[in-house]
């Protein structure tokens, strides 16, 4: 084992939406911060849809923005389509939603982090959290390096013992084709934390060149638009369009006929999902009276023809995914470029946390994002910001931690 010769104030494990905000705010607060991520090329990766904001989520991004986070600013850099939701209602419930170019988003975020003072980014995998006298002491990595630290923010997303399901096919992985983190869970269990399994999922991506868009209702960007970050002014942009469609009776038939082949109902997955992300087979079982579910085609970026089909999240076998596509008007000839899949992962019972997101039983250990059983980029970013801020306070500044009330606006 190699003992790194410098002690960090804060180590952030995981470079997703929670980890990026955590690392950035900790470093901004003056904490000597290390961000450990399995892959530099997937920093701030949008694993699911290419969109930031939406009802309630847009409000979270604005709050992150106001508290010094980066999500709103990066969103404006990567934006390809703006839409203010709920403008028919009172302003308190207006919600900004922005489609982003995935690649621009992640590289812009990476560049942002690289320019942050006090922040060291490292490609490695954290495998163990060491404690001394009930407090965090060090993080050990797969390459057997030991980094001493005063605080740790763990943002493991879907990667702790992640398992990918496509029908009966099961693969290890936190995201399709990205390695799972198979060691850290054991370290958390050794700390006496109560763990469980959750599942979430994502729809198939298709080649836009094989879609008959004439069968869909186009949704152009707001223009002029309201930027996501209140610190930005609108600039001239190249916009892309989104498209609105619906499932059909035929879709419902396919789902009914092949229900048992879904990883969800075949017995391969026993865990439940965060309820905001139901799969199409879930919807068919729980709401059989709704036969025509809305679908929303979102472009994945400026330099790709890939489209994300919101509302079509599934863990059906690939051939059933084709049957589902063929049941939808305009998608009869659509080619799948990446299949939809479900992912199962370890999370920790969030009642083990203080409102500051610090683990009650381990001083200096903070959790943010899906490890707490939540879902959503924005929710992860918000938690990352709070956890990162508190970790920095713990690490360098003062012992008091901060938390936000559950309903600060009411």
């Amino acid at each position, binding site marked *: 084992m190699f003992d790194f010769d410098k002690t960090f104030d804060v180590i952030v494990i995981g470079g997703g939406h929670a980890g990026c905000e955590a690392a950035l705010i900790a470093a901004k607060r003056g904490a000597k911060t290390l961000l450990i991520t399995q892959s530099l090329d997937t920093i701030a990766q949008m694993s699911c849809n290419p969109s930031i904001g939406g009802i*309630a989520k847009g409000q979270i991004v604005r709050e992150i923005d106001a508290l010094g986070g980066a999500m709103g600013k990066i969103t404006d850099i990567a934006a390809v389509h703006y839409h203010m939701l709920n403008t028919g209602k009172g302003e308190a419930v207006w919600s900004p939603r922005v489609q982003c170019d995935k690649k621009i988003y992640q590289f812009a975020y990476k560049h942002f982090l690289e320019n942050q003072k006090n922040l060291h980014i490292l490609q490695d995998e954290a495998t163990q959290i060491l404690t001394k006298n009930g407090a965090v002491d060090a993080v050990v990595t797969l390459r057997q390096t030991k980094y001493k630290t005063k605080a740790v923010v763990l943002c493991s997303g879907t990667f702790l013992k992640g398992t990918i399901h496509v029908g009966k096919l099961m693969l290890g992985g936190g995201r399709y084709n990205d390695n799972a983190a198979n060691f850290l869970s054991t370290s958390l269990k050794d700390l006496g934390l109560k763990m469980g399994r959750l599942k979430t999922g994502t729809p198939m991506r298709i080649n836009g060149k094989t879609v008959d868009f004439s069968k869909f209702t186009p949704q152009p960007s707001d223009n002029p638009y309201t930027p996501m970050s209140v610190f930005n002014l609108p600039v001239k942009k190249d916009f892309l369009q989104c498209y609105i469609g619906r499932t059909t009776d035929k879709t419902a038939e396919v789902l009914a006929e092949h229900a048992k082949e879904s990883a969800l109902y075949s017995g391969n997955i026993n865990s439940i999902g965060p309820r905001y992300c139901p799969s199409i087979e879930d919807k068919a079982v*729980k709401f059989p009276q*709704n036969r025509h579910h809305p679908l929303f085609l979102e472009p994945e970026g400026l330099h790709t023809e890939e489209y994300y089909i919101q509302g079509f999240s599934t863990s059906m076998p690939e051939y059933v995914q084709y049957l589902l596509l063929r049941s939808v008007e305009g998608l009869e000839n659509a080619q799948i470029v990446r299949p939809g899949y479900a992912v199962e992962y370890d999370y920790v019972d969030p009642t083990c946390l203080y409102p500051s997101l610090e683990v009650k039983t381990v001083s200096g250990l903070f959790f943010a994002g899906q490890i707490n059983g939540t879902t959503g980029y924005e929710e992860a970013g918000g938690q990352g910001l709070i956890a990162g801020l508190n970790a920095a306070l713990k690490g360098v500044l003062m012992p008091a931690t901060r938390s936000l009330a559950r309903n600060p606006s*009411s």
Partner: protein
Amino acid sequence: MYNMHDTITAFATSNGGAVAVLRLSGMLTYTILNKLTKKEFTPRQATLATIYDGDNILDKALITYFKAPKSYTGEDVAEISLHAGPYIKSRILELCLALGARNARAGEFSQRAFLNGKMDLVEAQGVLDIIAAKNKAAHKAAVNSLEGRLSNRFKQIRQNLTDVLAQVEVRIDDTDGEMQPLPEKETKNALLKVAQEAKNLADTFSSGRLVKEGIKVALCGLTNAGKSSLLNKLLGYNRAIVSSQAGTTRDTVEAPLSLLGFDLVLVDTAGIRKTTADEAEIEGINRSRQAIEQADITIFVRDLTLQDKSEENKFFDEVKQNAKNLITVFNKADKIDFKKKNGLIISAKTGQGLKNLEKEIIKTLNLGDISGQEIIITSAAHYKALLAAALELESATEKLADLELCAEHLRKALKELKELIGEVTSEDVLDIIFSKFCVGK
């Protein structure tokens, strides 16, 4: 708050009697029982056991053990029925404390029952009321809330309001117009129905308070009209000093009386006369006026033997203005031969007409229903909360077109009712939204 993890003990019975019941609640209950008796216990089975103090026998006791969560507090509970000797009582308590229990604070068993979800606050209030109940009607009201009848009505209110809130909130989120618009008429009717129900419950408060706290009945009239004699006759014993001297009663005199299952507090007041210069008597007269204002019923005692009624009439007019419920009686029927047929003719001396007066008192308060099945509110805080909630609900019905404002009024109504129906969290609303509507990306 006290430490919930302690095992607590206290006598459930008061001093005196042949049997004393000691109660234990908490994790150590079974261990303590086992060490006291060297015996094993089956839950919910009364068991005769010898209680040991070291190697010596302390007593033979009947012990019932209740295993968590099927007990009053929701924890492990034991009830030990002992012989109520002073040494036995103090020694068993010492033994329990030595084995790790601590003395329970007042109300701590019920507090644990509440915190463990065995009863809600209304039921807990019912426990308090049932112990304190002094008469049949108060007991009935307390039993109703203890039995959860009041709670069931609140549960219905809670469910109806939470459902409507979910219907409203899911539409705030429905940005794509997927949902049918809020059924305005239906929603409005549902909300107004709950508002009316809240008001109806609130309306029971005045009689509820009367049942719980007792009904104040003031006796008033000119000096020497026979008020004190009437008080004594109604009570059945001589509470007030009676003399033929005008102005004998100088201060108000109170005495409790149970009448047809209701608690009354009879208040004898100083008689009114203009001509007095006595300072104490003047103060007494002022207190009479106060007593009349505070009384739930005022009985104006007229003196049939009076020749000049002008002063009596004048005072009657004043009392009529200030009294909430006025009953007029014509006293001293024994003294004169007389033909009057209207009104309550009584004789405080012979008791003539007093049964009619008693009936009139009950009739005046319209309390007939309360002694029956009616569910009533007995706490002022609950009364205020119900009225405030009704107001918010009515505001909500006026904002059905502005969903976010409507939701805010509904949340305020729920907040007002929090003590009665329990807190409705955003989690409760989300549970309904996600179970009833196909929401999510």
